[in-house]
């Protein structure tokens, strides 16, 4: 649904793929500092325009959680020259679709239209970068919309509430511990001033990246970009992106979230982990492969041992959010079968990790994973929008175009030894959170209840 926020570290989302240099990618920078990436795909007369801001919920000031996402909604209200709602109405009248999304590290806006409408899209998108006009009425109604969005995504969903609490426990100091959509009590009092303050600080060409993907040429995009975005002055007061850093984490944390709406209990374990760093992506690449080895699918070690051999779980998995500006997490989860307690499930999880640390990487499995990663580069070319998203995320998370293009080769270059070294550094319980999601007060009762 529209004007959505993305859960940056969705447990199951896994896309380590990156484009290669031959993906017809061109990049340049306008005089005012706005970066531009053009991705050509001439198979259909379609274009996607995206503007990504290097600021998301983790760049908010304490006390106004959710303001980045709130502002994203408000950008569809008026400007000096556009009535409220006219932006989307104009896109629709041109047969296009538009939307936006907010995450911890970025806020992005996009339109998907026939390629010959690109100029109109640029005119409108550049307009709202600096000419937003908001009224108190806009604020009041849209605040109710985001509260309903929170209801829909979080309050009505015990797994989402559990994840929110887990993140808050994982991060002692960093804003990744605060939900993107915001804490409800802070959302309720978000004001016009809060929104405009965030807008004034972060929305400027020198904090933005334009990505145009589809049936376009770099020269054509450059001419239009200079005309519409190039004339907007850079913001000389754009703050440096120095966010609060995590202190050393020295205490293992455990949490239980109980909710009568939970019908399938499960165990989650997350470890604080390094992210992809520009020019040094090897550790992150090793963790991507580790997540695949442990929990990437039917033949992953967790499923081999717990689903097939011991028949204890419904399924198990692993996820790692490689793309992130600051320290990220590596997540494992186990969903026990009826009759298996959460304690038994957690113990079994730890036994599999211990076994892996003892026995190391199965080279044949690693070869298969690398073969799949290679093939995924071919399949990914079928969806130019996903390639655009990959660049947008990377460039707002401290990486460069060269990093994105090197990533597939970095993944292929990782050895079994590097994976083991990364695992050794990762699996430190002092930096972990173990969470149980369950419906009942007594931990052991959870399994009994579902078996009834």
């Amino acid at each position, binding site marked *: 649904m529209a004007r959505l926020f993305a859960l940056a570290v969705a447990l199951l989302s896994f896309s380590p793929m990156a484009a290669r240099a031959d993906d017809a990618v061109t990049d340049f920078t306008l005089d005012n500092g706005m970066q531009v990436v053009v991705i050509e795909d001439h198979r259909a007369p379609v274009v996607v325009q995206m503007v990504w801001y290097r600021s998301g919920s983790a760049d908010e000031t304490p006390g106004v959680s959710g303001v980045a996402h709130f502002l994203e909604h408000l950008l569809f209200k008026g400007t000096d*020259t556009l009535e409220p709602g006219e932006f989307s109405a104009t896109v629709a009248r041109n047969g296009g679709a538009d939307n936006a999304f907010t995450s911890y590290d970025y806020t992005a806006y996009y339109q998907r239209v026939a390629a010959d409408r690109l100029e109109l899209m640029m005119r409108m998108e550049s307009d709202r970068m600096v000419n937003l006009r908001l009224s108190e009425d806009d604020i009041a109604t849209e605040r109710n919309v985001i509260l309903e969005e929170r209801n829909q995504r979080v309050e009505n969903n015990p797994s989402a509430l559990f994840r929110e609490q887990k993140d808050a426990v994982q991060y002692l100091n960093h804003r990744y511990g605060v939900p993107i959509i915001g804490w409800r009590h802070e959302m309720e009092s978000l004001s016009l001033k809060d929104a405009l303050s965030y807008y004034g600080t972060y929305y400027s060409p020198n904090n933005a990246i334009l990505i145009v993907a589809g049936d376009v040429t770099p020269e054509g995009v450059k001419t239009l970009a200079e005309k519409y975005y190039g004339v907007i002055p850079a913001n000389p007061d754009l703050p440096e992106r120095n966010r609060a850093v995590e202190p050393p984490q020295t205490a293992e944390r455990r949490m239980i979230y109980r909710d009568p709406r939970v019908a*399938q209990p499960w165990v989650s374990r997350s470890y604080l982990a390094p992210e992809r760093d520009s020019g040094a992506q090897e550790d992150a690449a090793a963790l991507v492969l580790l997540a695949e080895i442990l929990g990437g699918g039917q033949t992953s070690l967790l499923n081999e041992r717990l689903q097939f051999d011991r028949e204890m779980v419904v399924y198990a998995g692993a996820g790692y959010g490689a793309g992130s500006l600051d320290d990220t997490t590596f997540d494992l989860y186990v969903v026990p079968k009826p009759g298996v307690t959460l304690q038994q499930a957690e113990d079994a999880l730890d036994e599999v990790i211990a076994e892996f640390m003892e026995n190391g990487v199965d080279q044949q499995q690693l070869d298969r994973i690398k073969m799949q990663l290679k093939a995924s580069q071919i399949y990914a070319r079928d969806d130019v929008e996903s390639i655009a998203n990959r660049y947008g995320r990377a460039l707002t998370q401290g990486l460069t175009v060269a990093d994105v293009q090197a990533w597939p080769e970095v993944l292929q270059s990782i050895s079994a030894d590097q994976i083991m070294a990364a695992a050794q550094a990762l699996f430190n319980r002092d930096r972990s959170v173990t969470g149980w999601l369950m419906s009942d007060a007594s931990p052991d009762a959870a399994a009994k209840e579902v078996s009834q």
Partner: protein
Amino acid sequence: MIRIICTTWALLLTLALPVRAEVKIQEITTPGGINAWLVEDHTIPFTALELRFRGGGSLDAAGKRGATNLMVGLLEEGAADMDARAFATRTEELAASFVYSSGDDTVAISAKFLTENRDAAMTHLRASLIEPRFDQDALERVRAQVLSGLRQDLTDPQAIASRSFDSLVFGTHPYGSSQDGTIESVTALTRDDIVAAHQGTMARDRLYVGAVGDISAKELGALLDDLLLDLPETGADFPPVAAMNFPGGVKVVEFDTPQSVVVFGQEGIDMTDPDFFAAYVLNQILGGGSFESRLMQEVREKRGLTYGVYTYLADRDLADFWAGSVASGNETVTEAIEVIRAEWQRARAGVTQAELDDAKTYMTGAYPLRFDGNGPIANIIVGMQMMGLTPDYVSNRNTMIEAVTMDDIFRVAQRLLDPAALSFVVVGKPQGLDPT
């Protein structure tokens, strides 16, 4: 200043003609007699292949609800001389992607495979379609996964809402219950039931094929014969057309959660009806998913009562209905429903010329944008075959949208929109709502 800019944009709108979808669909018949549609595109060295079997979960035998769904979940869990683990390992080695799924009206297989190992990938896919093992241990493992999902559905307001709505509208017809089955029915399924579901649903007399990508007509012909000729000639009988019950009013299912989830609907219209396109455009204006729809404007933009509200024309094989959904806090859901009812009534008076023009520009402009990759095109062309359309529909479809007049909209609104029959199911703890 404002005026001038608006005029310029309006000019741009009128001058820019909608782009045409340009896909060259080849209709082929294989040497073995299988019909398929193909769009050749050699840009990327892979092929997207969509197989659909009409019937799907609705072909479940009496008392065997969920058999088709469980069977489809087992296709990749062991085939020919491979057990589940060996099958998965081989799929990974080939770096192919096979997605098996079932719905009320279809069993669907979505395959993507590289040109470099196409034959080996197809040998592997064939094993899962023709020689699935349905081993007892795999059956128990996947059954446990299905049961886990069914248990979660019991406390998921969205799932409760759609199940209550289906049961209200369709009663004992297969559409009246989830094709996933119930905890009881799935628990009772045996291996024989699974084998019967395989024979009954995946037969050649109900097969539709779409292929897009790096493959020629001749290569596809040979590939499909090898892949599919050994399927059974014919399968289970199709159920009758569904009788529908739309009593009007509101049915509340009490569930302790902060936001009420609402599903609503009334009778719809078949795609072959001469008024279908008028109804399709009317739905777009009323609640068709964009920010510009009347319901989005009234319920979200003006009143802030929801994050999203939609309607759609459900053109199923055995029933046509007009459905929608909304979610709103327990304190505000009553108002949201009142607004939707009022809009339903208001739309009976037709729409404005501006609304009609805007909807047409959107719909005709958006259509070609769908054809933007091998995967999406394969989906579209197999769907078209199931709807009984011909390839020229791709170039005629926008003309039919353009032809809809104000009179057509008014006529179809009067004929179809029925506020008294519009039936709501609400799951939550709605305040101030009088169930009827």
